[in-house]
């Protein structure tokens, strides 16, 4: 069994993100980067699948970005991925193009499962997983907080391996079954990712990272989303004390908080 785990490199969400003077780009040079937390959940789950129900699972981490992404791929290998693929592009593409690249990789690798984060904490789009599932025509389960491998179902309409997953939706916890191959996107409560300390990263140095140029995948990027401006949301504050509930309501309405 093969599990593909796309990994995104994102600015540390703990840090304050600033917009440059032209209001078109983010100033990220001083901001440390991390593996997108939801992707870490996805990777952790893949490792747990290998540690549990499917010992022969092969886990492949995919990064789509500039050479700096190798660092997050190294971390992924330290967390338990068997090998990594780095698709070299100058910057992270929009979700549509990420999905196209993932489709191309999927066609090369023919995995049984694409396990990824529900969204990236930088652009917060929450689209790529659904796009890939749609493009591949595979079953999908988004916002997953639990994955269970179930024995083969004798029901003739469902062939192959099956998963039972719990999804965290606005209306509650939804349980569905999926036929493999499938796309699953992970929610935060799926698991607690392990921490890759330096010795683990050093140990994973021997694991391979394959770099694939975009041209080899025959993909020409055609962005669907074009950013034209950015604005910082101010966060400095000075407390304005109010004396009564009436005064409070006046202030809140006056400042259009309510």
């Amino acid at each position, binding site marked *: 069994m093969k599990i593909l785990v796309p990994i995104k490199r994102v600015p540390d969400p703990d840090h304050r993100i600033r917009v440059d003077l032209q209001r078109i780009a983010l100033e990220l040079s001083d901001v440390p980067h991390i593996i997108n937390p939801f992707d870490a959940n996805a990777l952790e789950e893949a490792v747990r699948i290998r540690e549990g129900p499917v010992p022969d699972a092969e886990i492949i981490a995919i990064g789509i970005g500039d050479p700096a992404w190798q660092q997050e791929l190294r971390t992924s290998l330290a967390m338990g991925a068997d090998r990594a693929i780095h698709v070299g592009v100058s910057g992270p593409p929009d*979700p*549509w193009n990420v999905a196209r690249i993932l489709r191309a990789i999927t066609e090369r690798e023919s995995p049984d499962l694409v396990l990824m984060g529900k969204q990236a*904490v930088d652009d917060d789009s929450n689209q790529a997983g*659904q796009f890939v599932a*749609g493009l591949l025509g595979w079953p999908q389960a*988004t916002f997953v907080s639990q994955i269970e491998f179930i024995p083969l179902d004798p029901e003739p309409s469902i062939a192959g391996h099956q998963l039972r997953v719990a999804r965290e939706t*606005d209306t509650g916890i939804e349980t569905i079954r999926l036929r493999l191959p499938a796309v699953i996107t992970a929610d935060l409560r799926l698991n607690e990712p392990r921490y890759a300390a330096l010795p683990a990263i050093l140990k994973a140095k021997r694991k391979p990272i394959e770099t694939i140029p975009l041209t080899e995948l025959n993909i020409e990027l055609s962005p669907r989303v074009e950013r034209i*401006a950015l604005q910082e949301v101010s966060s400095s*504050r000075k407390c304005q004390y109010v004396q009564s509930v009436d005064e409070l309501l006046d202030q809140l309405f006056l400042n259009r908080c309510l």
Partner: protein
Amino acid sequence: MRILAVIEHDGSSPKPGSLAAVGFAQAVAERNGGHVASLVIGHTVAGIAEILTSFGIVYFADSPALANPLADRYAQVIVDAVSRYHADMLVAASSTYAKDIVGRAAGLLGGAMVSDVVAHDWRDGQLLFVRPMHAGMVTETVILHGDPKIVTIRPTAYPQPIAMETQGELFPIAVQDPLPVGMMWEHLESKLGTRPDVTDARIVVAGGRAIADRHDFERLVGGLADCLDGAIASTRALVDAGIAPNSLQVGQTGKIIAPELYIALGISGAVQHLAGMKNSKKVLAINKDPNAPIFDFADYGLVGDVYDVVPELIGKLHEP
């Protein structure tokens, strides 16, 4: 421009958020002379479709196979409806339903999608969308290339739609056979109440150590949140004490959120908690301790006991 709004429903009526999506669609259509239609998917949804006719044309897909929202089937129906209506734009309210189903449909329709839109604008006849990113620390303005354009909106950002003078027509959509069968429904464990998710809500009401028990948490925190259509949240202290469930915890070890307004009730402001809510746009703190550190991180402060202040606040908010 032909705009199709995907309507989420609870089996008997459309969800208010989805109606806000229709409101957004109307606003866009009004500006460029377009048309708005609604799409309802499910089983025995004729009644809901009927309700929606007051906002224009309604497409509806009704089948036992669509009794539950499974993304592969529903997305297929949406793609069919888009092609039937020749829609240039597909809109929905940003919810887990739309992120799941409309997101997949967008993948099938060319991927020109923008999520969580909180405002829009026009420039040279082009639609600009404004959306938050980086957990609300930054907003970006984008344009979409390609058709159809797929948009999910934050329901709190848009008004409810205006009813038309004449009712729209109803068009049933024949369900394609066979529908995809890779996903099978098992069951839904319903959440109590219908409050928005703490990570998505525009307003979040959070309770801290001053709240004594579960009952008071529901009465004060829940009560105030319901007045404001807000989500509820708590500090680690209440989660630890078993007063609030784990999923509501905001802070370093809980969720990191950035709502428009964060109301801190009886929260002292430990650094662990501040880490989770410091990016909120506005913060209101109510605490009886004038020295509570939370006031250093608040825009509005009211020194008082939450047990006195909150009931009064709820009472005044209920007044017309």
